[in-house]
């Protein structure tokens, strides 16, 4: 008799599986569909539906035209793309270099350095950070969004742990062949760590793409604001607690416009996932098994 996992599942069981999985898929797809539909809906659709629209009966691109008409959104997308690409590249370079160095037992003063890095896990206060950014002359510059976040302690720990699991024998043999540390990192360690680098890169990219609070604090020039800040102002307009307390009351943005901003903020980063997903699964599994 074959073991049970080699049996063909019964049609009934298949159907239940499909139902459950399909249900979960719907739970994920429907909210996104609603966001997209609402962004394409006309005012009439929105009033008829009382807010969110599942399927617009009079689709229109009006919301997107309004959104990009001001010029602010176009620039914001460029800013976000720049910060995400450059930020991720710099953050990966810094983190990989540091993780590799601290993963090798020969490094002088390693415990002290690790202790210092350990403190990075705790976020600094808003004002100390502001003072540092100010004294580095980064105020009102896009670098203020990139450099303070260039080393994530958590990502560093993940990478370092991974690098430590690269067999020492491999590195020794490379050294016997005359490879420098840089060559070892580039030719041996990195190719073995593609999966985890992709994962950490994705963490960084999502982090840079989603960040808005630093932009609020450090950037005074509205033309340098990233997409998320714009998203926040559109969605919160007319709904915030403080506006109510103050009694100022700008009308809320139309629901379609709010959802159009959500779509614009969501789509670019969501498009990255399919390309990295292969590595992503692999990376997570590797980490899980090797612990």
């Amino acid at each position, binding site marked *: 008799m074959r073991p049970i996992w080699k049996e063909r599942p019964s049609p009934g069981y298949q159907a239940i599986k499909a139902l459950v999985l399909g249900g979960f898929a719907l739970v994920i797809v429907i909210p996104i569909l609603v966001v997209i539909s609402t962004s394409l809906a006309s005012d009439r659709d929105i009033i008829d539906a009382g807010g969110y629209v599942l399927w617009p009966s009079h689709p229109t691109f009006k919301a997107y035209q309004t959104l990009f008409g001001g010029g602010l959104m176009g620039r914001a997308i460029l800013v976000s793309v720049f910060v995400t690409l450059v930020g991720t590249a710099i953050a990966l370079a810094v983190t990989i270099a540091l993780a590799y160095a601290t993963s090798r037992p020969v490094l002088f003063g390693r415990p002290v350095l690790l202790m210092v890095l350990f403190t990075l896990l705790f976020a600094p206060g808003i004002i100390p950070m502001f003072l540092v950014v100010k004294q580095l002359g980064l105020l009102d510059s896009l670098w203020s969004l990139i450099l303070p976040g260039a080393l994530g302690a958590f990502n560093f720990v993940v990478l370092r742990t991974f690098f430590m699991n690269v067999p020492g024998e491999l590195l020794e043999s490379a050294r016997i062949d005359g490879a420098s540390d840089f060559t070892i990192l580039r030719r041996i360690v990195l190719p073995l760590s593609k999966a985890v680098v992709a994962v950490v890169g994705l963490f960084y990219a999502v982090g840079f793409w989603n960040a808005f*609070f630093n932009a609020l604090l450090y950037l005074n020039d509205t033309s340098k604001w990233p997409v998320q800040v714009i998203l926040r102002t559109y969605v919160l307009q007319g709904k915030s607690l*403080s506006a109510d307390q*103050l009694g100022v009351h700008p009308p809320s943005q139309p629901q379609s416009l709010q959802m159009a901003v959500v779509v614009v903020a969501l789509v670019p980063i969501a498009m990255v996932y399919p390309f990295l997903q292969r590595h992503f699964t692999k990376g997570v599994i590797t980490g899980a098994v090797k612990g």
Partner: protein
Amino acid sequence: MISRRRFLQVTGAAIATSTTLAACGDGGASSGGAKASGELTLPTYKPFEGLHPDFPGAESGLEPGFLKFPADAISSVKAPPLKSAVTALTETFATPPPPMGSNPMWQALNSALGGELKLTIGTDPGYPEKFATLLASDSLPDLMWLPPNQGIPNIGPMLEAKFQDLTKYLSGDAVLEYPNLAALKPASWRTAVVNGKIWGAPIPSTPFGQVMMGNPKTWAKVGGLQCATADEFFAKCKELSNGTNYALEPAIINMLHMFGEWFGAPNGWRVNQDRSLTYLYETDNYKAAVEYAAKLWAAKVFYPDLNLADATPKTVNGQIAAQVTVGPRATSDFRNLDPTLFVDTMIPFGHDGKAKPTYDMGYGTVGFTPFKKTDEGRIRELLALMDYLSAPFGTKEYLIKNFGVEGQQYELDAGKNPVLTKAGNTQAPGLVSALQIMNSPESVIFNPAFPDDTKKVYATEQQLLKYAMRNPTAGTYSDTSSKLGPKLTAAFRDTIVDIVTGRQKMDAYDAALKRWKSGGGDKMRDEFAAVLPSSVPVTGS
């Protein structure tokens, strides 16, 4: 998303605990500020002449109404105020404007002012953080908008250390040199007085507070929104709710605020005969309102999703019959969605048809804008700028600040009212919101597209004023309230919402009240009582 429906809405309660954080009309108790404030001469009030509203305003708070924009706008200042650039921190509640370099409206304003007005525009929420970082880093702009109720602590010492005392330039008749500032009401000026000194020009906003609004088409089925007793309201709500349509939006705390008015609950604090204070939560009136709300919830007349962010579209399409809005002028929000809809505003009534209801007025200002410490010449220049930006409705300066330049940002419609053009719609809203929050004239009622609304809103305001009650502690300061007020209020409200929605029994009320008192409520009472101005009347008298 922080929704105003779910958090500390500006109810009477919020005003008492969290919204008087800073306005400091009479300063801190420790520095003798209350006494000093009593000796201060407020700026002389001299209304702006040369404007003739269709419906006159009144000292009571009644806002003047304009059916159309005054023709041939007059000038309210003699010369451009600035000689050099000015930097300012402000906040926009609209979507941010294009930056100065690519914003012709901003540039036009600069040339009218005679110098560049460089604004650092904060967004909402996040302003207190921005304010705190600028302050801590000692890189202060010339002007910084200071909101009264956004949790900026230690106002008194901060002003003394970093900002300019403007008393001698503004107190008494000195203000007459700046006619637009002299046209701001004494009630507004109280906000800008801390430790007995004047620190900036106040920023008036509508003095009215929350009201309940309903879609008349929905309420027509049950004989209209207005009721004479709480039982009548209950019956109407029940009739309007059927499992798909509901009578009330699920903003429990806001709704409770309305019920509290019918049951005679005070606006924040009640001043007793012996001038001691009783807080809203301690009154039987509020407790009765909570019981009433629980009864309504049990009758399933509230829309069941407590997380509903914005009820407005549902009120427009009839799924929800009534919601609570910021004030009587909010009728325009519904017009925006459906131009054919003019919503009804509920006038408070006594719960049993006999008791006197109350109507809670709002805060009335959005704070003031203090100056960085500087020399006399610069102070005069900045005051002239304040004067310009506080130009009353209907003046040339008001047009430039709010609508830009004719033919570019705005055009005149058939009724000669300014209407933003497409360019204006891009350039104006974020900039105008940022300018209005740091300087404003006294508010008016003006609905150019629907002049009839102006008349109706004016009539509603007159009716509401019959029951008007102001928060006795507005403009005073309690340290405990700044630090603990919002937390205590939130904890108490959690219990109330639980009681209303049936998750807890009514006996949880007293336990929560006890926690509120021992957690800081009693201390707040002592602090507010110590600085209670003698001009504040005993409640109900």
